[in-house]
């Protein structure tokens, strides 16, 4: 069989689209982000509990008192987990994706219901969208729309659109042919047949499709989080990246609360807005004779008034709240509110240095946004100018692949920490295994497996092509491709049971402080010299922000400083990163002025503190 260069065609197709249709993608991006910002602003404006109240009143109206109370409890839980803002941004993302998906899906479904040819064309496309692994959709979405909301929304809506189209088509096809014929026989225009007969009767099915779209959208949220959409998806990704089971669970619970609420509300809305559904529900109520309080549902006017009152209160508080904003002015205000975006990979030194620079730059008057990404999207974002800089580039080895691909679109602002090291690591209780040379004869004990990380990582290439050969491990061991979280989970599991395990690891890494581990010696130097941790910026960043460029180029940290800051941050826990940085800076006075000198206070001559 000749090799079909399908992948190459897709690549060149994507390139073509990038060069020729970028205006279209920009327009779409502006539209999507505008919608997202609007909805998010509305959702994030009121006090969490007030909005929870509004949502609960809606639930009361649509489903009854029990649903209202549960909805309030659910949202209060989200708020108490400190995930409110993330939940609202996720909700906004899902709503935007759903709205756009429906704007496309319903007309397409109607068209497919009316034409067999369209139906036959659309079906395989939907199959493709629905079953294509969602990560595969995310990468082109990032390429076209850049990191952030737009890519997340587009990837989500592509993934979620299929049931919207299918259920609309099905709903319309299911409408009794005789009814359509009756409408025709009385001279109804095709448009009115659709609007007055087919759509009203198809509504329950269409609403089931809407429900499916929302549910699929929510399930895509976690993956969209990898494109830097933040929200609960971002929280889950951070938790996975750092193996924080508890935090991941909390974020998961918040997603579940959203999912259950949206699911119940859309299905209730389905019966509420369809005349048939309304009647069926009324009949069921009469039949069951339920007149109890918990089955009572207010007339539409009650929730409308309730929502209006709560919204007014919320609006009022928003107005008063916004006046509390501070505008700090000082001599050190170099940034004057200029916006800087820092991207980071959720590795400990990445988090520490990123929040350190966020704090430093904010003290210097910049408006800093930090966003977490997976390594691939981070480099893409940097190359396309979405992200201004990132502090966690391991060069020349670990991130060699990314550097090769994006290096000429990036500026290297130099190494701030090093050297790092790459290694194979075993738990300290593996007494007889101390060096890579010892591995071969213990292959049976380890089950012939080296637990690796992402196959795209530089160290994996190095391991397979060089280290294995050098120590004669080929044949004796298989390298298991996977992911960093999976590797860490495997390490944790084996460590808890004191089972033999050998993993790929690197330093600095928090695993060395959490577990008693042993780096395997590399007498033949197969891993090569260690990497340096570099700061990379987008092309031209240093020219636009000369001070920041200078500060970053001059930046360096000692191991003591880095580990001290890391442990501070680890103790502070999720959400407390910046507070931990502030506390640490207080303990180490003068560092801000040394790392970010300002004229008059700059250089080595400034007064500490």
């Amino acid at each position: 069989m000749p090799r079909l260069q399908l992948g190459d065609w897709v690549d060149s197709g994507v390139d073509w689209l990038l060069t020729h249709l970028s205006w279209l993608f920009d327009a779409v991006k502006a539209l999507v982000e505008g919608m997202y910002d609007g909805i998010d602003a509305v959702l994030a404006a009121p006090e969490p509990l007030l909005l929870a109240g509004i949502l609960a009143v809606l639930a009361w109206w649509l489903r009854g008192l029990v649903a209202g109370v549960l909805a309030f409890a659910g949202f209060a839980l989200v708020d108490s987990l400190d995930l409110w803002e993330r939940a609202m941004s996720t909700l906004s993302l899902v709503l935007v994706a759903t709205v756009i998906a429906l704007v496309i899906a319903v007309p397409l479904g109607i068209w497919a219901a009316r034409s067999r040819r369209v139906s036959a064309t659309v079906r395989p496309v939907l199959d493709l969208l629905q079953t294509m692994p969602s990560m595969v959709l995310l990468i082109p979405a990032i390429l076209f729309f850049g990191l952030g909301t737009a890519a997340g929304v587009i990837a989500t809506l592509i993934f979620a659109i299929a049931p919207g189209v299918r259920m609309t088509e099905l709903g319309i096809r299911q409408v009794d042919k005789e009814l359509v014929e009756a409408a025709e026989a009385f001279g109804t225009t095709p448009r009115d047949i659709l609007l007055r007969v087919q759509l009203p009767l198809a509504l329950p099915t269409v609403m089931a499709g809407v429900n499916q779209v929302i549910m699929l959208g929510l399930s895509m949220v976690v993956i969209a989080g990898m494109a830097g959409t933040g929200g609960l998806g971002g929280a889950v990704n951070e938790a996975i990246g750092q193996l924080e089971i508890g935090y991941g669970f909390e974020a998961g619970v918040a997603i579940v609360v959203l999912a259950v609420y949206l699911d119940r509300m859309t299905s209730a809305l389905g019966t509420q807005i369809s005349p048939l559904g309304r009647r069926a529900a009324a009949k069921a109520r009469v039949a069951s004779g339920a007149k109890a309080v918990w089955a009572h549902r207010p007339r539409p006017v009650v929730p409308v008034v309730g929502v209006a009152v709560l919204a007014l209160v919320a609006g009022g508080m928003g107005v008063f709240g916004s006046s509390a904003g501070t505008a700090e002015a000082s001599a050190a205000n170099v940034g004057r509110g200029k916006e800087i975006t820092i991207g980071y990979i959720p590795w400990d030194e990445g988090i520490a240095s990123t929040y350190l620079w966020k704090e430093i730059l904010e003290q210097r008057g910049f408006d800093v946004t930090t966003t977490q990404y997976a390594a691939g999207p981070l480099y893409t974002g940097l190359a396309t100018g979405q992200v201004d800089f990132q502090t966690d580039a391991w060069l020349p080895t670990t991130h060699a692949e990314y550097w090769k691909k994006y290096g000429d679109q990036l500026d290297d602002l130099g190494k701030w920490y090093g050297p790092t090291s790459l290694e194979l690591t075993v738990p300290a209780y593996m007494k007889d295994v101390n060096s890579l040379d010892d591995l071969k004869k213990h292959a049976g004990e380890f089950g012939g497996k080296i637990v690796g990380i992402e196959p795209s990582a530089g160290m994996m290439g190095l391991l397979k092509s060089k280290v294995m050969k050098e120590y004669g491990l080929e044949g004796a061991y298989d390298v298991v491709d996977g992911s960093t979280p999976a590797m860490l989970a495997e390490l944790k599991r084996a460590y808890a049971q004191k089972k033999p395990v050998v993993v790929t690891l690197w330093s600095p890494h928090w695993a060395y402080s959490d577990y008693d581990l042993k780096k395997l010696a590399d007498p033949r130097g197969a891993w090569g010299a260690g990497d340096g941790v570099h700061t990379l910026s987008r092309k031209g960043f240093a020219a636009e922000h000369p001070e920041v460029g200078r500060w970053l180029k001059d930046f360096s940290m000692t191991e003591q400083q880095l580990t001290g800051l890391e442990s501070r941050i680890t103790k502070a826990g999720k959400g407390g990163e910046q507070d931990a940085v502030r506390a640490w800076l207080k303990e180490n006075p003068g560092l801000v002025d040394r790392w970010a000198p300002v004229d008059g206070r700059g250089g080595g001559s400034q007064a500490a503190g």
Partner: protein
Amino acid sequence: MSSRLEADHLYKVFGRRPDEAVDRLRAGADREELRADGTTAAVIDASFTVEPGQIFVVMGLSGSGKSTLLRMLNGLLEPTAGTVRFDGQDLTALGDRELRAVRARKISMVFQHFALFPHRSVLENAAYGLAVQGVPRAERERRAGEALALCGLAGWEKSWPDELSGGMQQRVGLARALATDADLLLMDESFSALDPLIRRDMQDQLLTLQQTLKKTIVFITHDLNEAMRLGDRIAVMRDGRIVQTGTAEDILLRPANDYVASFIQDVDRSRVLTAAAVMDTELRGDEGTCGCETATPDTPFTELCAMSARVPHPVAVLDAGREVVGVVPRQRLVGFLGDETGGPAPCDSPREGKVTAGA
């Protein structure tokens, strides 16, 4: 007053190259030949005229093409060949928009399974056709209410279709069709889905309504009894062709072929025949001279039997001008019931006296 409906050499062929198929049918090809090629001739060369105010029944078994024929009359299906004229207008020449206008104002339809809109109340259903015409709400609700009252559904306006029995649902369907004041009413097996008793009621009601409304009605059925009860004229269809057109009596007394003849075996003749069909027109001249009860040519068969029991001699039949046009001897009544047209054979041991004495 209603208008005349004419169907002229209608063909409907489903499948590929329908025009070619019509040419072959005209040249004498039959349905089976076409089916082998994957085309289906649903209606072949159907022509008929329905006079204003008449009920024209198309009778045929399922698959005979009667429903297809009906749908060509209001343009729901476009004839492959042939024309439909209604009220002097060639419907087959109209564009979509004009055709819709005709359907909205001049032709309405009643369906087999009622086809009521489940998301509209009874009143809204009855008012549907008027809503399509753009009649203002107050007026259309008034007219729909009147149509419902006409069909015996006063007081049910606020109900929903699924709360009604089948018969009542079909009354709503009838009211919906009548509310638009369309001259032509197409009824597609409208009573077939109803219980026999309810079906009788509906047939009676349709006949009663027709006496005042005088619509032109095309009624489709597979039930010959129903066809005979309702139809001023009846067309019998088989395999896409109309095999006979005529009055109920024509069909019953002079079936065009064995197929029609086999149909009428089950028909209750006593419900169809009238004095005109059974009377003996060879007169002696003195039949109308006595003071006994007399019949008219329209007197139904069953009534004639009752009369015959009360009158000692053959019943005289008088026309509108009180002229005797025929007599009905008792023997003929019995003969028609038994489908026996011949006279009695001589008996080898006559018992005339005993019989008359007993009568």
